[in-house]
Every structure is written in C-alpha cells, then in structure tokens.
C-alpha cells in the first residue's frame, strides 16, 4: 500500500449514489450558509456529532478508522471534490456505509424524510 492512500478502499464503490447526489447543493454548505445568518462559528453544529459517529463505528468495529479514512480520501478527490470539508466528510461517510451495506438507500431516504418532518413540526 502506498503512503498516500492510493491502495483501493476495500469494499467502497466509487460510483455516484443518487440520494447523495441530489443533496449536493453547495449553496447550503456551512461556509455559504453561516455568513448569510451572521454566524461566525467556522464549523456546522453537527460536525462534532459526525466525529463521534465515526469514532463509534470504529470502536464497534463496524467501520475501521483507517479503512474509512482511505475511502474518504478517494471519494474526496473524485466524487465529492469541490464540496467543502465537513459536508464532504459527511457525504463520504454516508457513501461508505451505503456501499458497505451498513445502511440501505431506501432506509436512509425514508429516515431523512421523517427527520425533516420532525424538525419542521410546529
């Protein structure tokens, strides 16, 4: 394996995933969104939770950290190039989990709809 991550990321399919492609709206990334609301925090509030999810997946051996990082690098330099860092890491994690069969696209889409309804409930 090369030092710069050129070895294949085992088990990670690098072709586009429709569900994730449809949400790649760079106008909604934190670096664009935060200034519009006068928010100066450089990171989105969900970033720390994303870190924790990655750690938990590694701790439970569902997705080893090194394997995830290599796949993140590959996806970040190909499919998700141009998406800023925190959103890129999030898309890559979802992509890797879908690709490894840890999640299904149908379940994820259904859950996202349910969560949005929950968050937007008045």
């Amino acid at each position, binding site marked *: 394996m090369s030092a710069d*991550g050129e070895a294949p990321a085992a088990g990670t399919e690098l072709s586009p995933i429709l569900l994730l492609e449809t*949400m790649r709206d760079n106008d909604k990334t934190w670096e664009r969104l935060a200034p519009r609301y006068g928010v100066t925090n450089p990171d989105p509030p969900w970033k720390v939770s994303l870190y*924790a*999810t990655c750690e*938990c*997946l590694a701790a439970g051996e569902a997705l080893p950290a*090194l394997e995830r990082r290599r796949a993140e690098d590959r996806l970040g330099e190909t499919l998700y190039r141009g998406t800023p860092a925190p959103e890129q890491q999030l898309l890559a994690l979802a992509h890797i989990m879908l690709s490894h069969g840890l999640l299904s696209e149908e379940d994820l889409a259904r859950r996202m709809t349910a969560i949005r309804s929950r*968050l937007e409930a008045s």
Partner: protein
Amino acid sequence: MPHTHEHNDGDHEHPAAPMVDEITDFEVLEIAVRELAIEKGLFTAEDHRKFTEWAESIGPAAGSRLVAKAWSDPAFKARVLTDAVAACREIGIDWTEPTGSGTPSDYMELRVLEDTPTVHHVIVCTLCSCYPRPLLGHSPYWYRSPNYRRRIIRWPRPVLAEFGLTLPPEVEVRVEDSNQKCRFMVLPLRPPGTENWTEEQLAEIVTRDCMIGVALPRADRKADDVRPVHKARRPVPDAHDQREG
C-alpha cells in the same frame, strides 16, 4: 432574526447569538445516519454521547500548557521526553479517555519531538490523519488533506514556506510521519523575549501550528496567522518529479 431578551432580574438585555434558521439536507443526513446506525446496533446512543462530550472537550490549549510547563520546568521537560503520556497526566490530560483505553483513533503512545537551534521538526500522517488529539484537539483541515500529506514529506522547506516559515539552510528539517502506533507533537524552541514569563503567559504564544511544526512561537503572537489558500502545485516545477498533479 436577531432579537433581544430580558433576564429575570430585568436589569439588562442583550441580543441573542445569531443562529442559522434553516434545516439543510446535510443536517438531516447527519442525524439519519446516526439514528439508523444506533437502531441497527452498530453502537449505542450512550457510546455516541460519550464520544461527543469528549470531542467537545479537546483543543490545543492542553498542548500549549504542556509546552509552557516544559519550557519552565526542566525536570518536567525530561519526563515529557521520556514518557509523554505519563507527563500529560500531570497537566490533567488522560489519554485513556473516553473509553478507558483511549479512542480508536488515538493510540496511547506519544512522542514529543524537541526542537533545537539546529533541528526543526514538523509532523504529518501520510497514511491518514493521525494527530495527537488529546493534546491538540481536532486536526485542521489542511493537515488531513492529501495535498499537505503528500508534499510535506517530499518538499518540506517549500511547503513550510507556504505557511510563512522559512528556515535557514543550516537548520535541519525532520518530518516525522505518524503511524497507527505512535503520535508525535513538536516541542518548539522557547523564543527570545520571554524571559521571566509565567507558564500562563508562555502558553498563550504556543499556538497549534507551533506544535505541528509549521510555525515558530514568537513573543508577540498569540494566535495562528491566517494563511492564504494555496492551490496544489509543484513548489519548484523543474526540480521535482512530475507525479504531483
């Protein structure tokens, strides 16, 4: 929309901090991935809470304290250089948190690299993004980028120059590559003009970048400089191989 509110004592009011009043697909995706993973038993909500609290608690201030104490106390510095994880406990940093055996990404082996007038260290993780998180917090984005990881080991001086750090030729540059079994941190040289400073004063000038090795502490600087963003390029096009895109 900014608004003000009064506290119960009614003696002052101030505007609430601005918030992003919009739910994005990214926010929703993060929650969905987490909830489904918990439901599938990949980890528990309690595991996630523990790691979240830990991730929110770390930052470079711990590393700054370690360096300031090492500069002020030769006996402590000797302990830092021989058993850094044990020395960390003396300043309240426990590498076994939050699980009792550390995190999957933070192996409990740390070596502190002492700079001298003739040797300068800089750290990288060419394989992924290993970083001494209990001491320095989360790594900056550029540290994780393939661009930095590829180029700092090939062309350390030009890359350091991009950070604004130009070292004289007589100073040897050593790039230390982290690996799965060991983390590194730089103990920079104490700068002139800091004689008789307290540890608190010293800690203020030891920024994250100084402990990575892409900057040097200065008596007149208390924060990492804002750096211009450089596109990937060959630092000296005629002098290097053509693999770098």
